[in-house]
Structures are given as structure tokens and as C-alpha cells.
């Protein structure tokens, strides 16, 4: 039950280890978050007491599993303030949810000459599905570009979103730049022009309060594993009236009302979109992760991360050989910080930081068009979560300094 934000050490056993003989500073949270004991315990408890397949069963275990699975749906519903629990579809992850929308709503509503508007900072998962849909349907894919400050250029958004636009798809928070995009305003713009808006919540839901009704997004996808849930579970939120009009995505058990040799009647939402046995234990443990986050409070989570960014960002920017991408102002920056060190390749930097116990990511972060727009091939990315500490931040800064020296010594 520990959930005091200032003493979480007991909840995350994985953080209490050494790598390469050094204390681990896990700063790869944008890739995946660590799981508190409570979440792992809920997996164990399910498998040791209640494991059964859901919905189809009348026996006691099946009933327990079904109740817990549907409880998890309601927890997620309240967490993002959806109007109805039937608007919550469990998916395999954010990518699965975004593909679902492109393959059903997109397939049905995009025609020759229509336009789809995304942003240049999209993760491949919110980019390629739309790009391929546009290619297939002879529609036009347009990119909202960056402002000089490394944020979304809203003037450009107003230009790009027109009456030809049918779908706008934008990340709520960038997984590279550390920016938060004005999703509510984009939703207003999209709706003004009769388009729908798809929000990619992979980097927002774990880190800040999210209210899908207030944002007025039509669809909103995110992953469990980035918010301390297990891998293999995610959520797609969709407005009920849209979901009801859409064809199913996959066909199989659980999603039907009646099957005949030559035709099938499909079930109501959300089941229409949950074909086959779902990640039952994963959904239930995601519910536990939601409980954990709510116990701490999303405002607290966001505040703690802001505090860490306030501490680390100026220290990074003060290093003359470090370039930070995205906004320079800590107040405008989430816990995701992409940077480069003069002349050093991010891969070499990440290997060096790992040798110092600091886990960061190097590469294009599944955002190659953004890399091209920034004029780089790759960056190093440190990403913080609320369980990180000032000690982690210091370890990062010191490791960067040591890396600089190591390669200088190596005359690179």
C-alpha cells in the first residue's frame, strides 16, 4: 500500500540493483516504465487464485475473472473520464489501438482526395498507419510542422486542417521533444472542419491528468506498459456513437452475436472490438496500475516530474557540448529529454552512459521524419518518471561529463 511519492523505494525492487558495477539510474521510462510490486502481485494473485477465461463461463473462477476484467475497464474509464465503460476497448498496446482506428474508421471514411493531417513529431505508430491508409486510398497526408521553439506550429495547423480534412491524428505528448501538444484546441479545429481527431496518449496518460471528454477527442490510444502496467495490454478510447458505426477489426470468439455459415451478426461495443481471448491478467493488472497512480494522484505525478525537469534541464543545457531538442524552458518540457553531445554518436553515448549505470535510449525513437526535420540521424534520450530521484539526475549529468572525457581521452 506504500504510495508516498517521496518514498517509493520499496515498491520498485528492480531499481535497487547495480549494472556494470554501478548503481542503476533507469532513465528509459518513455520506452517502458517499471512495475510497482502491487502490479506484479496482482498478476500473481490472479494466476494463483482466479485464472479463467472470461465472459463465456458460468463457473466460479470464470465469474471472478470476468468481474475483475470488467472492473478494470471501469477503472480505466474513470481514470480518463470517459462517459461510458463501453467506450474502453482493451488492445495489445497503443500501436494496436491506432491501427484499429486506421483499419476500421479510416478504411470506411477515407476516400480519394480526402486529407489526413498528422504532425511531424509523430511516433511511427501514429504515422505509418495514416501514411499507408493515404497511399491505399489516394488521400493526401499532411504534416503540421514545428515552430522554431520546438513546439507544434499552431498557425501551420490552422493552415493544414481544412474542409478536406477527414482525420487529424496527433500525439498528446511527444516521445522526443518533451512537448505537450494543445490537443483540445486541435480537436476544436478538427471538429470545426467536420474532421475527427485521434489522440496518441502513449506519453501523456502515464504522466498527467487526462480527461477525454474535456479534450473532446474522438479516439485516444495508449499503452499499459508505459504507465506501469504489464506488457501486451493497452487501451483504445472511442466515442460510443463512432464505435457503433465502425466495422469490427478482428473476427473470432467473443465478438459475435450470432454466427451462421454465410454471415455473422456482431456483438455490441466494446466486445465487437475484442475478438478472441484478451490479455485478461494484463487488463486486471493495468487496473492495479491505475489504482496505484490514483493513490498518488496524477497532479502529484506531474508535479514530481516537473521538479526533476527543473533540476536536470538547466544542468544539461549548461554543458557547452550538449544540445537539447525541444523547448529550452523546463516549464514547457515533460520528463522526456532528447539531446546530443557534439561529435559523439548517440549510440556511443548510450553505451558509455550504460557503463556508468545510466539507462537511456539512443536512436531515432521511432520518429524518423522528426529526426529529418531536426536535421539529425539520431539522439540520446533520457526520460524520467515520478519514481526517479535527484540522485538519478546527478548520475546522468556526471556520466555525461565522464563520457565526454573518456572520448576526449580517446581523441575522438
Amino acid at each position, binding site marked *: 500500500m506504500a504510495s508516498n511519492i517521496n518514498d517509493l523505494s520499496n515498491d520498485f525492487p528492480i531499481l535497487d540493483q547495480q549494472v556494470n558495477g554501478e548503481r542503476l539510474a533507469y532513465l528509459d521510462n518513455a520506452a517502458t516504465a517499471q512495475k510497482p510490486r502491487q502490479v506484479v502481485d496482482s498478476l500473481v494473485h490472479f494466476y494463483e487464485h482466479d485464472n479463467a477465461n472470461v*465472459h*463465456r*463461463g*458460468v*463457473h466460479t473462477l*470464470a*465469474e471472478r475473472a*470476468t*468481474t475483475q476484467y470488467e472492473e478494470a475497464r471501469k477503472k480505466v474509464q474513470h481514470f480518463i473520464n470517459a462517459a461510458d465503460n463501453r467506450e474502453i476497448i482493451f488492445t495489445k498496446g497503443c500501436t494496436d489501438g491506432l491501427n484499429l482506428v486506421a483499419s476500421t474508421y479510416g478504411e470506411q471514411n477515407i476516400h480519394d482526395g480526402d486529407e489526413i493531417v498528422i504532425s511531424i513529431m509523430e511516433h511511427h505508430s501514429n504515422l505509418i498507419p495514416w501514411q499507408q491508409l493515404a497511399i491505399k486510398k489516394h488521400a493526401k497526408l499532411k504534416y503540421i510542422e514545428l515552430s522554431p521553439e520546438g513546439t507544434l506550429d499552431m498557425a501551420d495547423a490552422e493552415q493544414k486542417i481544412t474542409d478536406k480534412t477527414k482525420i487529424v491524428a496527433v500525439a498528446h505528448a511527444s516521445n522526443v521533444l518533451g512537448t505537450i501538444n494543445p490537443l483540445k484546441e486541435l480537436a476544436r479545429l478538427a471538429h470545426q472542419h467536420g474532421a475527427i481527431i485521434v489522440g496518441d496518449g502513449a506519453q501523456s496518460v502515464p504522466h498527467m491528468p487526462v480527461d477525454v471528454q474535456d479534450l473532446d477527442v474522438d479516439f485516444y490510444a495508449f499503452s499499459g506498459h508505459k504507465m506501469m502496467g504489464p506488457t501486451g495490454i493497452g487501451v483504445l478510447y472511442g466515442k460510443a456513437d463512432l464505435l457503433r458505426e465502425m466495422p469490427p477489426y478482428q473476427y473470432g470468439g*467473443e465478438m*459475435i*452475436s*450470432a454466427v451462421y455459415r454465410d454471415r455473422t*451478426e*456482431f*456483438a*455490441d461495443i466494446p*466486445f465487437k472490438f475484442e475478438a478472441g481471448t484478451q490479455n485478461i491478467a494484463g487488463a486486471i493488472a493495468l487496473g492495479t496500475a491505475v489504482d496505484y497512480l490514483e493513490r498518488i494522484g496524477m497532479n502529484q505525478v506531474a508535479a514530481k516530474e516537473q521538479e526533476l525537469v527543473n533540476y536536470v534541464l538547466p544542468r544539461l543545457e549548461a554543458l557547452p557540448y550538449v544540445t537539447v531538442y525541444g523547448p529550452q524552458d523546463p516549464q514547457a518540457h515533460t520528463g522526456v529529454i532528447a539531446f546530443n553531445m557534439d561529435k559523439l554518436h548517440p549510440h556511443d553515448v548510450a553505451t558509455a552512459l550504460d557503463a556508468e549505470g545510466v539507462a537511456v535510449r539512443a536512436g531515432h525513437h521511432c520518429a524518423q521524419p522528426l529526426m529529418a526535420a531536426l536535421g539529425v540521424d539520431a539522439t540520446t534520450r533520457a526520460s524520467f518518471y515520478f519514481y526517479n530521484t535527484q540522485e538519478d539526475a546527478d548520475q546522468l549529468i556526471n556520466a555525461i561529463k565522464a563520457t565526454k572525457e573518456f572520448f576526449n581521452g580517446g581523441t575522438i
Partner: protein
Amino acid sequence: MGLSKLNGLYREVILDHANHPHNKHDIPEATSKMTVHNPTCGDTINVAVDVEDGRIKDIGYSGSGCTISQASASMMTEAVKGKTTDEALAMAKTFSDMAIGKQHSQADLEQLGDAQILTSIMEFPARIKCATISWWALQRALLKTDDEEEEQ
């Protein structure tokens, strides 16, 4: 505990309705018909209602299903026959609310007649759908728009 646990669920009046169903027949002149499937088990209920001047003049059902769904359909038809559509819809709401654990006044419950006995279903969450399916079919039949034919 074992099977004795089931005495509440399979009370005599329920078994009686299941074995000697009331109003289990089609109504050719019905003003509205509705077929509903229980996707968990494949059961089907067809409800036919004949509404005249806002009142359920006649109602019948057909289909196959378990003891609970058959008994519930039988009790449902008994309970709503002769009622106004508004009254019937209110009863359907009482029944489904009850099935999801919401409280209702004693007066509302008494309206349901025999059907209120199925509150015992509450102890068997996996079987709640069996009891509600006929009330749901009724509701859909009464609210049905012309282009709806079948619903889950």
C-alpha cells in the same frame, strides 16, 4: 454446500414457469417483434407484442434457452400483459436495474409480480443475463424503430 446452494435459484415457481411456460406462442398480428441473442450461450428469444392505444393487448415469446431464461420470459409476459407501454418500460427498467444491483422501492418491485422472485439471480452473476434477456427483448420491441430487425 454444493447443490443446496441452488435452491434459491431454482425455486418451485421458477421451475414451474420454465416447465409450463405462459404465453409461449407467436402473435401473427403483432405490432412489433424482436429477436435477441445471448452471445454467451447462443440462446435466442423472440418477443412479439401487440400494442393497441398505447397498451399491450397481447404478448408472446418463442425461442430456446435455459431454465432461467425461459422462466423469466414466461414471467415477463405475464407481468406486462395489459399494461401501458410506459408502464412496461418502467418495469423493464426496474428489472434490469435490479439485476445490476441498483435498489428500487418495494412498490416498483411488486409491480413485477412473479418476476420479482428472480432477484435470487443476484447471487449468480454469471446467470444474470439469462434473466434479463427477455426484458431486454421487450424493451427493444417497444422502442424499436422500423429499420431495426435484430439486436444482440
